[in-house]
């Protein structure tokens, strides 16, 4: 078992068009590093130069926004589903 990561379309060019990727990671930061290890260049899309998640990107763990959890140190467990979703407008 591992963490399932849903990759949005704009990032699938890094993942050989895979929409869902399985990874072992203890928290969100480790997940980002893990993604970078497998798909070089991906981290620079997700984070700014200081390693902070870009402000127009949302990450959800099992449908919960990580800003309601522990942000980038949010712990991950086997079987968790992580979604990466660019911010969208509404109404």
């Amino acid at each position, binding site marked *: 078992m591992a963490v399932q990561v849903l990759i949005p379309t704009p990032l699938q060019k890094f993942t050989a068009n895979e929409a869902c990727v399985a990874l072992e990671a203890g928290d969100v930061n480790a997940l980002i590093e893990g993604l970078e290890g497998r798909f070089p260049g991906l981290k620079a899309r997700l984070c700014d130069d200081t390693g902070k998640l870009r402000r*127009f990107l*949302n990450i*959800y763990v099992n449908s919960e926004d990580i800003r309601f959890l522990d942000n980038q140190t949010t712990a991950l467990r086997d079987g968790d589903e992580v*979604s990466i*979703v660019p*911010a*969208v407008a509404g*109404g």
Partner: protein
Amino acid sequence: MTATIASSVLDTGATFTGLRCRECGQGYPPGAKHVCEDVCFGPLEVSYDYDEIRRRVSRRQIEAGPASIWRYRDFLPVVGDPVDVGTGFTPLLKADRLARYLGLEALYIKNDGVNMPTLSFKDRVVSVALTRARELGFSTVSCASTGNLANSTAAIAAHAGLKCCVFIPSDLEAGKVLGTLVYKPTLMAVRGNYDQVNRLCSEVANTHGWGFVNINLRPYYAEGSKTLGYEVIEQLGWQLPDHIVAPLASGSLFTKIRKGFNEFIKTGLVEERPVRFSGAQAEGCSPIAQAFEAGRDFISPVKPDTIAKSIAIGNPADGPYALDIARETGGTITAVNDQEIVEGIQLLAEHEGVFTETAGGTTIAVLRKLVMAGRIEPSERTVAYITGNGLKTTEAVTGVVGEPHLIDAQLASFDTAWEQVQMLQHASLNGGAG
């Protein structure tokens, strides 16, 4: 590549040249794309050839156009014939009675509660989005909605002959659900709040190849709100107001009203002057107001709990830009509670004969709060944007506005009831004075 596509767009008579990232400036061709996927995930915005627009437009040419948003089509990102359902050019009402009550000298109500075809400002953005959807070859359109956008997308898709599937939170007001179903779209009521619906839609947009008006068509969609800026200028006799108050949900409307003002300045249609921008939120969902108060430049999302469902977006995508605008212009962003929102609805109805929904109640309640706090000067020419119609959210005022007097069809019955009414009014007047 971008330059080739840009010139081909201009060849067709359009004035827009492509998409550009608001954060890093990266350019993209004008397709169905909403984020800066090559660099930073910032939002994409439509860019224009303003020299070309300046050559084409004049006050007289605009005044001779249709009584809809399409009188401003040189400023909108479309190529061919628009989907024109009569959207826009709604009344700008001089609200003298409400102004006197609040202690303002010149107050105007921009009443999009009577916008066509579905009685909210969303008809503006959807008209633009579906015109562009057709141009980009989509046959199915969709959206995530707090209600008004669902109504509008379903209605205008029906008119344009596009297939439609819309997503709403499952707890919306009955009027908004019915006012979507009647146009026969596929309606998905999602167990969850708007932000959860929106996340689901982002994932559906990844896989289904639909035109989501607020996702992959967002750069075009959002431009429709600029017309709320243009119309106010034109209706004020080609002048800018001093202060505007508008509701904040995602923050997009607020930023686009300003873009509309700036474009009219840039193309010589109106003389520049400072305009203060103030934003209204409901306390039960006020992430932008909280950031404003705390002096933060980032938004911490919240979980909505308010009767103002149409503006209950806990994770507002354009929140950071709305904060910048309020700060730059000397405006403010503040929140009011649900009771004040209902009072706002009543104030506008009783003083001006305009029945607005909860978002409009929020705007009027914030307007009152800002005047009382001295944040709006009495002499400022102020425009309050009313974005939706009260008949869609009757739940909000049920039980608050009283009951009819039930009488028989006989003069004696009326006389008795009338006497009681007079006595009650007399008593409440005396009570009020005491």
